[in-house]
């Protein structure tokens, strides 16, 4: 489904990513963790070409992301993405946030898009808020709307970049619950997060990054059992104590 082959990326002379390779198979959930500044966001943004990369290749469903001939808007419309700061469009109502890309990109009718939007809002428990504006919702509610907005495009995989790290602690679980449910339904997911409880519950593999490199890429049991690298052990002990 998603194949990342030897990706390297530079900001000027500063190398953010060094020779990163991994893959996410259909129906798999892969969690990416690592210290701040290690390049997790950069890597996940390379997957849907929000960031360009200079070396290597990323293949999604047999389509090469870095190929200049690739129709990026079309590719991205099939790859859902959820951001740390929600990024709902503040000038549009909740239902219009869900409708916008369905109508403009997929060419669905307003009514069909609205129905689809309402069904997804219902699924994340926010149908009653359809006509409100993003500023009127709590952080946790906004993030659930953002997930629904991505799902409205019928994506074949979903990318999450620290979806709960901007939330107050009491709102984290309402978002994680939605994500767990999604994972259990078989959605292919690549998730940057430090929520190890989530990783334990649904991840197939865990990737640990440091200084732009993938240090560890292991099955969940293996990773939590005995991470091979010292840095991953150190990182893990720090965040697990923290929780």
């Amino acid at each position, binding site marked *: 489904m998603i194949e990342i082959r030897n990706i390297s990326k530079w900001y000027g002379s500063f190398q953010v990513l060094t020779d990163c390779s991994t893959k996410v198979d259909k129906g798999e959930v892969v969690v990416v963790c690592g210290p701040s500044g290690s390049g997790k966001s950069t890597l996940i*943004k390379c997957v*849907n070409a*929000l960031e360009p990369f200079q070396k290597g290749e990323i293949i999604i469903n047999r389509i090469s992301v870095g190929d200049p001939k690739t129709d*990026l*808007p*079309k590719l*991205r*419309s*099939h*790859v*859902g*993405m959820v*951001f740390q*700061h929600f*990024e*709902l*469009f*503040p*000038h549009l109502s909740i239902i219009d946030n869900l409708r*916008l*890309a369905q109508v*403009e*990109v*997929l060419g669905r009718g307003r009514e069909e898009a609205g129905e689809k939007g309402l069904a997804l809002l219902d699924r994340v428990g926010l149908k009653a808020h359809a006509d409100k*504006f*993003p*500023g*009127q919702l709590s952080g946790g509610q906004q993030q659930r709307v953002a997930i629904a*907005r*991505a799902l409205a*495009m019928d994506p074949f995989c979903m990318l999450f970049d620290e979806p709960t790290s901007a939330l107050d602690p009491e709102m984290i679980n309402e978002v994680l619950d939605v994500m767990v449910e999604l994972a259990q339904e078989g959605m292919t997911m690549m998730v940057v997060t430090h929520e190890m409880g989530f990783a334990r519950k649904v991840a197939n593999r865990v990737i640990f990054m440091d200084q732009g490199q993938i240090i560890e890429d292991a099955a969940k049991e293996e990773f939590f059992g005995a991470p091979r690298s010292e840095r991953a052990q150190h990182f893990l002990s720090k965040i697990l104590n923290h929780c």
Partner: protein
Amino acid sequence: MDFSSIVSALPDLLQGMLLTLKLLVFAVAGGIALGTLLALARLSSNRLLSFLAGFYVNYFRSIPLLLVITWFYFIVPFMLAWATGKMHPVGAFASSLVAFMMFEAAYYCEIVRAGIQSIPKGQVNAAYALGLNYHQAMRLVVLPQAFRKMAPLLLQQSIILFQDTALVYAVGLMDFLNTARSRGDITGQLHEFLLFAGVIYFVLSFIASRIVLRLQSKLAVGQN
């Protein structure tokens, strides 16, 4: 002071005000449209486009409006003749309108550009991530938010434009001020007419700037 002849001049003055407002409305609409295109060009990753737009803006911000108005009065008929091969009489109104649009676009451009730059990068990324292309992201996500944020400044600039329309006396257009001046001359009550015109400009600009204040406080509350 004798204000008696102002009453009989009211229909003429109203005509003049209509011309002023017509000039204003078209110049604001055209200026903002052209200014927005210039802002997009300035922010474009195409170096040449961005350089040309930057040059345009800096050029028009460095010369007096009065010069542009008189200059266009003489040059627009020639440009049309060059483009169509025939000499067209253009008239002072059309040439002044083009002058205002092109001059004000330079100022509107800078306002819109600041507005676009104030929208967080994450909003653009979210728009792209949903599959919108550049034009859709701009039209549906970035510009609506930028205009909302910049509405008070755009209106402020338009109030300045309202006052600047009086410069069309230079090409002989009978706008509000020029009508008042000419009627004052004829009736020998120039002081009274100018005083009256001043009051009218003040009242209209004052009302408009109150609207700007209202808008500003409303936007401040509406932010999340």
